[in-house]
């Protein structure tokens, strides 16, 4: 049985045509490979966390809104030495923790239904990553109706009671 290497036709082809490596073709393949590799990396590096803003209402005054007794308000602040503020502080009424994991567990305990309203009340100077940890914990507890408490005025001070849901 003749093997591939012993093929007379192939030998003749190689001899007569002086087969060369198609370098341009390899260039194209290499470029395509590079492109797809980079694109795949972009896809895996970044994801998204959905947080749809309420459709039926805009920023409201506390005086105008009807207080929803079922809603859970997660207060998010930060603590740390100096201006680092690297440690999150999550609190729901009297309960408090520094761990997003414990917050997720707490939310699971409080969860009555998937549409239970949750309000994330973040302090204006709190690092954004702590707010995302709270939102992530809500997603972990399968709570989808999440609102964000808005500041009373941009750049202004104000107390917590002045804040209204977005």
């Amino acid at each position, binding site marked *: 049985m003749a093997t591939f290497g012993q093929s007379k036709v192939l030998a003749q082809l190689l001899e007569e045509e002086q087969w060369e490596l198609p370098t341009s073709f390899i260039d194209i393949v290499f*470029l395509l490979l590079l492109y797809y590799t980079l694109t795949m990396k972009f896809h895996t590096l970044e994801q998204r966390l959905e947080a749809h803003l309420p459709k039926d209402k805009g920023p409201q005054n506390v005086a105008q809104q009807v207080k929803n007794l079922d809603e859970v308000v997660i207060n998010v602040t930060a603590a740390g030495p100096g201006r680092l503020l690297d440690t999150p502080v999550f609190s729901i009424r009297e309960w408090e923790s520094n761990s997003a994991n414990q917050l997720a567990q707490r939310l699971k305990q409080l969860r009555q239904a998937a549409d239970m309203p949750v309000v994330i009340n973040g302090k204006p100077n709190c690092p954004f990553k702590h707010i995302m940890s709270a939102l992530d914990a809500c997603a972990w507890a399968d709570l989808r109706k999440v609102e964000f408490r808005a500041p009373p005025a941009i750049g202004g001070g104000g107390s917590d009671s002045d804040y209204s849901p977005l």
Partner: protein
Amino acid sequence: MRMSRKKLELKDVGLQMTSMIDIVFLLNVFFMLVSDMTKMQVEALTLPVAYKATDDKNPPPNRIIINVKPDGAIRVNNVPYDRATLESFLSREAVKYPDAEGLSTMSVKIRADANVQYKYVQEVMMACMKAKVWKVSFGVSPRDASRTTPTGE
């Protein structure tokens, strides 16, 4: 029956270099444009980490990416905005995609740095609300998928 053996005719199978160079040139142009657009929309930021995030595949064509830098600076398509100009820009864009409820079907992705103060992100969210844009998502980095708790503890 004896089959007649015809001698294999060898044709010139040389590569068409002109077409190939055309293709390579087009590919290069395409890659250059795509990479430029990517740079314009996405700033280099340290995104917050989340476990329960979804892959950012098939984004809607009418999505705007808003970058919030560590110092609170807002940039869209490499153009700086403040709160007032962002609001008017979003309002202008939002009216192009109206829905039946008088709101907008346009979506916004907020890519904010992990360490930026929350008040700057609130400004962006307020601008979205005022422009009647309610489809908002946040750009996050995925956490290690092998972990089973939000913090990996």
